[in-house]
């Protein structure tokens, strides 16, 4: 009997790495990719090396170095992380690899937890690196050992593209045996191979183009693509990655007969597409995000003088499948109905309700130190100041008025510099998290100091990479596997970059925090405030217990000052016209310091 286990997609991918004999695994956390490294780093018994790198570019290069030494390597990241790592990726395609190397990139259609919804398949085309696109978590796991072998055989990395619904979907997964035979590391010197000076790069580029034919053929014949001809129908559907399972179910629900080509690899399987052309009059291409398959299918039809009506996201017939957001069964049913001339009407709501629902946007946790930092910052800088921000839990402060820009990882400091250099006269105070600062903020601070930007940089140091699931970073003195290591001093680091005003403050100490921010504002030049307090979730896990607070109803005047602080633990009782502190209070004590009437008191135990 086979072994089946209920698993998160990312855990299944981690299992695939083990089954395939992965030896060096690196990554930078980013939703929806983080649990792959988390799973591997939290295993007790490991015969591989795993690290959280400081950013995706570094992670890619570490994995590349391991592969140059002949071992199987993996680098993981979210889609926007590949922008950071794009520099090594593009040249790695020329250089090629020795050990199997997989670049796992998790896309986030619908921006569940991201700043854009870019499509990683474009990078595959751009770099001429093959790409695998699983349709289920099971297939995701099974593709990984295949990818290692394919990569080392053809001497080229393989991009493995997951999406939120693969990575954060759960499924029963059939496990396979673990590959115990692993290549031994041996770096073979070869300057033509590993030194991409122009002369060598010129030799490697034609090689990259030459191997495309073999790559295409082998991927085409792989089990990841599947053509199912339905002789009773002149309709065809091409669906890629996870879109395949949506399209499959939509066809079943509609009872539509159609030939279906399931796509799981890029470059695309031309022979299968041509065979499908021979069997259909109308062809609908179903894929999430970019019309990547569709553009290729159209070009192939054109090139072969094929007269099939091709429908998808583009072309003179208009949009059948949306180009933004994630797909689902409903969107596929709609597209299939429209494409094949079936009547389709949006189901009308079963329950008509005129209840007005309160919105429930994600918010910073009760007792989160970022809220306290922002409150002190705003007190010192005022509402008129400009607050460039960055990417992390602290971006959730957007409703409190201290998040004016968010572009990409590390951009807060550089955007702040740019706003200052533009001649804008209002004070500029940016904020960036500890992990994000170490990711790509260091270079921006150096640039700000060097170019004399008169701004304040706040490092929101909550001692962990919180948003993505509490991964360690160099500021914590722990590696991915929780071994003790160097603990980076933000204070010394910032001074080393040339900052002359660097102060560390505890944001739970409200008056001190306001004082530091005020002095940072007055400072002529780039000032740095390191606002340091452990993430409340981590503190709780570490066993730190603080007494909760409560309202002294005699003293509470109902002024709502504490309510405006925005902590989920503080409520307002409209009938009593008094504030109330609920069971979520973590005892940070900041609201007590804000109350002018001393009406918030600690509950002594």
């Amino acid at each position, binding site marked *: 009997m086979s072994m*089946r*286990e*209920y698993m*998160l997609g990312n855990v299944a991918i981690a299992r695939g790495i083990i089954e395939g004999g992965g030896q060096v695994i690196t990554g930078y956390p980013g*939703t*929806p990719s983080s649990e792959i490294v988390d799973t591997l780093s939290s295993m007790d018994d490991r015969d591989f090396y795993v690290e959280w790198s400081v950013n995706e570019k570094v992670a890619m290069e570490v994995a590349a170095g391991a592969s140059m030494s002949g071992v199987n390597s993996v680098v993981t990241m979210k889609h926007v992380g590949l922008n950071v790592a794009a520099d090594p990726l593009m040249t790695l395609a020329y250089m090629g690899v020795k050990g199997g190397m997989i670049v796992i990139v998790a896309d986030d259609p619908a921006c*569940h*937890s991201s700043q854009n919804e870019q499509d990683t398949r474009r990078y595959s085309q751009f770099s001429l690196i093959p790409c695998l696109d699983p349709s*289920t978590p099971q297939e995701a796991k099974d593709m990984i050992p295949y990818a290692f072998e394919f990569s080392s055989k053809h001497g080229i990395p393989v991009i493995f593209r997951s999406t939120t*619904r693969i990575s*954060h*979907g*759960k*499924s*029963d997964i059939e496990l396979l045996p673990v590959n115990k035979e692993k290549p031994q590391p041996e770096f073979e010197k070869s300057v033509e191979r590993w030194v991409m000076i122009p002369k060598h790069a010129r030799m490697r580029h034609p090689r990259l183009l030459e191997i495309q034919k073999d790559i295409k053929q082998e991927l085409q014949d792989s089990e990841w693509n599947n053509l199912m001809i339905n002789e009773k129908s002149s309709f065809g559907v091409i669906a890629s990655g*996870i879109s395949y*399972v*949506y399209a*499959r*179910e939509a066809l079943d*629900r509609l009872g539509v007969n159609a030939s279906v080509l399931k796509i799981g690899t890029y470059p695309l399987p031309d022979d299968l597409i041509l065979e499908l052309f021979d069997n259909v009059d109308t062809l609908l291409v179903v894929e999430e995000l970019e019309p990547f398959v569709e553009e290729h299918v159209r070009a192939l039809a054109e090139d072969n003088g094929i007269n099939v009506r091709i429908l998808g996201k583009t072309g003179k017939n208009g949009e059948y499948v949306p180009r933004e957001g994630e797909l*689902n*069964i*409903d969107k596929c*049913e709609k597209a299939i109905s429209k494409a094949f001339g079936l009547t389709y009407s949006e*189901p009308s*709501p*079963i*329950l008509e*309700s005129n*209840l*007005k*629902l*309160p*919105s*429930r*946007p*994600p*918010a*910073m*946790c009760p007792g989160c130190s970022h809220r306290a930092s922002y409150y002190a910052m705003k007190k010192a800088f005022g509402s008129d100041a400009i607050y460039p921000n960055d990417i992390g*839990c602290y*971006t*959730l402060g957007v*409703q409190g008025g201290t998040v004016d820009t968010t572009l990409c990882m590390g951009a807060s400091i550089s955007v702040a510099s740019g706003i200052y250099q533009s001649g804008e006269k209002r004070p500029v105070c940016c904020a960036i998290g500890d992990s994000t600062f170490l990711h790509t903020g260091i270079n921006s601070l150096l640039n700000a100091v060097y170019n004399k930007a008169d701004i304040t940089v706040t490092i929101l140091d909550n001692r962990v990479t919180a*948003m*993505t699931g509490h991964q360690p970073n160099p500021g914590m003195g722990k590696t991915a596997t929780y071994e003790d290591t160097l603990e980076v001093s933000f204070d010394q680091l910032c001074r080393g970059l040339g900052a002359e005003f660097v102060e560390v403050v505890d944001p739970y100490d409200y008056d001190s925090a306001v004082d530091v921010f005020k002095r940072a504002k007055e400072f002529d030049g780039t000032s740095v405030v390191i606002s340091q307090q452990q993430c409340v979730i981590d503190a709780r896990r570490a066993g730190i217990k603080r007494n909760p607070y409560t309202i002294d109803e005699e003293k509470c005047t109902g002024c709502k000052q504490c*309510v*405006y*602080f*925005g*902590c*989920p633990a503080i*409520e*307002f009782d409209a009938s009593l016209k008094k504030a109330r502190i609920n*069971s979520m209070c973590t005892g940070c004590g900041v609201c007590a310091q804000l109350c002018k009437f001393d009406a918030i008191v600690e509950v002594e135990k």
Partner: protein
Amino acid sequence: MNKNNKLDLVIAGVGGQGTILASDIIGKSSVLEGLPVRAAETHGMAQRGGSVINHVRIGTDLGSMIPDQGADVLLALEPVEAIRYINHLSENGIVVLNTKPVYPVTVTSSDQYPDVSEIINTLKKKYEVYPLDASELAIKAGHPQSMNVVMVGAVSSYLPISKNRLEECIKELVPPKTVDINLKAFELGRENISQLIETSAKKP
């Protein structure tokens, strides 16, 4: 409901209430029952105190997302969230609902939280609704955080999974120190709903 061992379940709630553990108990039990299962979850940014929805599809080998108006059962850990995701429920669907509200942070929003009885009455216009104060039952079981397991107990009789199997998975998935509390929570939820079902069956 349990015909062909297929069931599409939507779990709605608020980040931090333990919707993922609830779906894990059900998902893992399904696999042990030999049923294929798919689930979709909310992670990352959206999770922090936000409105969350999990899909659990027992008996399917396709995608994890339940189509609109496709769910057989809606398990709502919070009243407002039941209304927010009601469009996922099918015409003859069942709502199992925790009546204890979690109030959103009210600072920037002037929205009023609707009356819970009004929420229940609205749902009852079209659906079979089983409301219970799962938060209270969780406290009775020994810890407020076991509310999610009370709700698993409450929905358990609708699942194509045996009671023993669910209990076995609860033991495996909750922190070791809290096993007894959670098993009690499960039992309280299960009993409470069976009483509600009995009462409603007696009505003319």
